[in-house]
């Protein structure tokens, strides 16, 4: 027996969320497997406000209830996000799994969340009569730890419209489908007037949250490619010193080697060889 509420609109969902102790349920691809006893769900898959992909001046706004399959079919979702999403699980899971669920699950292995980190995405969180917009890295506090109040729902992911064109994306799983990431990497690069304007690098599945070191990125920002080349060795060394990987079935040493190889290859791809 599954207990739950089915919301037909966002306002109804927020009423229920405020009034009851419920677990938000979007695609259910994780919750169905968990099959927790004595839980009341709030089913969100029929809430139209959460199912939209829109574009405004600044952001591509992906509704939390948008499935991965829907995102792959959308002309508005940037290629970097599509590449990551296309590698999630298998078609049946992508048909059901959602962006909000991937975030709400609170795992550093979530493939769409990695892209949100590297893109400096924001999240719109809503509650009854209230809403706030937070940076994704402020929202993700640790393993299964989110800055989400018990009356709030994730409404939208706000991806910057510009700046995601030049990227590297790598997913290392144990096999080619239905594979949880062992290491995932996304890098975004920008160059204007010969100066590096963006050199974001994010690592998934290696720590409690997605790893990104903005202070290390800053050492290359504003530099020319030639200057960056000279700084590259120090930059890589700093990453290697900083990154402490969680232990897993696959050794931390292996996964760290992969991270460093992919980071190096990312810079090389954009001329910093």
């Amino acid at each position, binding site marked *: 027996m599954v207990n739950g509420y089915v919301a037909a609109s966002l306002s109804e969902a927020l009423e229920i969320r405020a009034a009851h102790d419920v677990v938000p349920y979007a695609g259910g691809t994780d919750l169905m497997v968990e099959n927790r006893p004595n839980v009341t769900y709030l089913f969100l898959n029929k809430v139209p406000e959460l199912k939209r992909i829109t574009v405004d001046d600044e952001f591509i706004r992906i509704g939390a209830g948008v499935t991965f399959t829907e995102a792959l079919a959308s002309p508005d979702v940037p290629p970097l996000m599509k590449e990551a999403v296309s590698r999630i699980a298998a078609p049946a899971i992508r048909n059901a799994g959602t962006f909000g669920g991937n975030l709400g699950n609170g795992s550093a292995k979530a493939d769409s969340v990695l892209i949100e980190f590297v893109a400096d995405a924001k999240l719109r969180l809503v509650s009854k009569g209230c809403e706030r917009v937070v940076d994704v890295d402020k929202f993700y506090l640790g393993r299964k730890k989110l800055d989400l109040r018990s009356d709030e729902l994730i409404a939208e992911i706000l991806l910057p419209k510009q700046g995601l064109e030049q990227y590297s994306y790598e997913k*290392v799983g144990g096999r*080619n*489908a239905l594979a949880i990431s062992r290491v995932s990497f996304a890098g975004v690069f920008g160059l204007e007037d010969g100066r590096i304007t963006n050199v974001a690098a994010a690592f998934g599945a290696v720590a409690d949250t997605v790893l990104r070191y903005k202070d290390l990125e800053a050492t290359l920002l504003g530099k020319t490619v030639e200057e960056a080349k000279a700084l590259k060795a120090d930059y890589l060394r700093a990453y290697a010193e900083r990154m402490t990987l969680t232990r897993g079935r*696959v050794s931390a040493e292996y996964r760290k080697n*992969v991270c460093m*190889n992919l980071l190096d*290859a990312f810079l090389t791809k954009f001329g910093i060889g």
Partner: protein
Amino acid sequence: MDKISQSVVKKDHATKISGRSVYVADYPSEGVLCGKLLHAKVARARVVRVEVPELPEGYFYVDAKDVPGDNNVNIVLDDTPVYCRDTVEYIGEPIAMLCGPDEAEVERLRDACRVVYEELEPVLDLRAATETFFDYHYGHGDVDGAFAEADAIYDEEFETGYQEQAYLETQGMMAEPEESGRMFVHGSSQCAYYIHGAVARALGCGPSGVHILQDVTGGGFGGKEAFPSILGCQVAVAARKCGRPVRCVFDRREDMEYTSKRHPSLCRYKVAVKDGRVTAMDIDVVFNAGAYSTLSAVVLQRGIIAAPGVYDVPNLRVHGCARKTNTSPCGAYRGFGAPQTFFAVEMMMDHIARDLGVDSLAFKQAHLVKQGDSTSTCGRYHFPVPLPAMIEEVETACSYREKRAAYAKPQTGRYRRGIGMSLYFHGAGFTGSGERDLIKAVAKLRKYRDGTVEVLASNGDIGQGVRTTFPKIVAHELNLPLDKVFYDHPDTARVPDSGPTVASRSLMIVGELLRRAAIHLREVWVDGEEQEVEERYKEPDFMIPFDITKFDGDAYPTYAWAVNAIELEIDTLTGTSKVLGAYGSFDVGTPVDYNIVLGQMEGGFLQGIGYASIEKMDCDDKGRIRNNSFSDYLIPTTKDVPNLRCMLHVEKYPDGPYGAKGAGELPLVGAPAAYLEAVEQALGGSSLHHAPFTAEDTLAVIAKEGV
């Protein structure tokens, strides 16, 4: 294509695809007690006592004291207890079963049991293990003389790991006391009569006191050869005590951690080479049997008989032993000991060829056995050895030699390619004279008044299609439509013992009995009458009697042959590999159903690639298996080998039905060597010695040796 090979819709297709098949877990729960095993949590200990919580009415605690007959499960030896004796020998060993109507309550009571252990030092490392369950020696020729005269001697060790069968349906058995006092045991299984013998003994009731039904079974791959005998005894003992039906279905973690897997192995090969030819092999094979001997004797026999591979080795010495460790007992898994030794011998031949500076395939071909040659056990290859033609079939499919030469040149860039090839056989049927001396298969046909014919045999359909292929053979001989002949899951109360569903024997041995029975029935057929005919196994006349004490004679009447090539690309940044193509030519004789056989070949080949690459499982320093879920123990998907090409080469076997010979196990056996040879080439000529070879292993080689 022969008419018999033309594909039909499998008899169980509609019920399985529509979800109507009833597996053991699907029987209604009303009146059935749920059984949960209390598993040992330490690898080796004396069990001082078990503090059992107070049991509510209708709940039971069942252990060795409740076994009315013999607490030893008959497998090959009798060392496996139904419920543990005064010690536990591995993590997971069943101490007791808690039974009751409510599953959650049974689990709660089970978890509330406190086992007081007096811990003993466990043996977890195969290299440190000293207790030997089985120890075999055989050979021929003058090995020492050949080594003394050799130009070069090669000495290498190869290691393989566990492999989990990963059948879709976990282990599950159910026992129901009948009003007559007889015990009815049924569930997911391969060998109804093995369970029959074991349960009768545990209950101390004689063979007529029990009967066993194979339920619809969601895959076995060997994993349900011996284990259901143990679980069958446990539920039967529980049902006897409770006086009610008891069902025990494992959850996935329980199944992966505590049930039998493929034996990890260490194989040391010393090879003498003179004038560019192998003159002698001195081979030492060690299998990790786990805590009890179960099937290790026969697994080891098959493994060591295959140890020199498909090569003519004039002087041979083989030593094999199965050692005890305090880990889950290993057992049968598709290939049954041969994947371990074929991996070793194929890698060894490849390494020698490379050292001699000659092409690996040409070197192997120069040593191939042929019809009339002696086998490793001084039997004979009585029938043609089609490997040369099969090599060319694979060559045509993938341009093996051209790619092998191209990838041998220095490569640059992130991705590096390699291709490898393995040549191997699988001995068809039981090893040695088991069919003649132990199994003595009997099969029957019963014709009803309405002209329908029922196959009466004890071989279980575990996905390999015997519910379809047996009737196909009978319908063919009787010239009946296929829907007039049927074969239900065997119940030992009504079918004769045609032997277990193992050793790639069902179709070749029992299928032939049924073919002969059908011819007999055709001759005596009278319309409107109920009639029954019976056939008994007879060993083919050409067989050289096998002496298991000396490993001398024909170990198998014939062989299924295969050539595998695997082409792959290594990502030097991540160590991951992408299989660009897997090509296999398989000779299983005449396919009795083309689609069924091809399905077997594709599935087995993919399973072999998993064994070679990603299927890694091991114990931690406490003896625990941690890779106990499908997210921690990965098996390949179709996306991992999208380009999988299997071809059938038909070398008919005159004593199999229409020329069919053993098929089920063959496709898995050779994949690891082909895969590893390809990885070696992609890594620029590294010498590799273990399988599975994971992405992590690849990156470790790159870190150490560079690329």
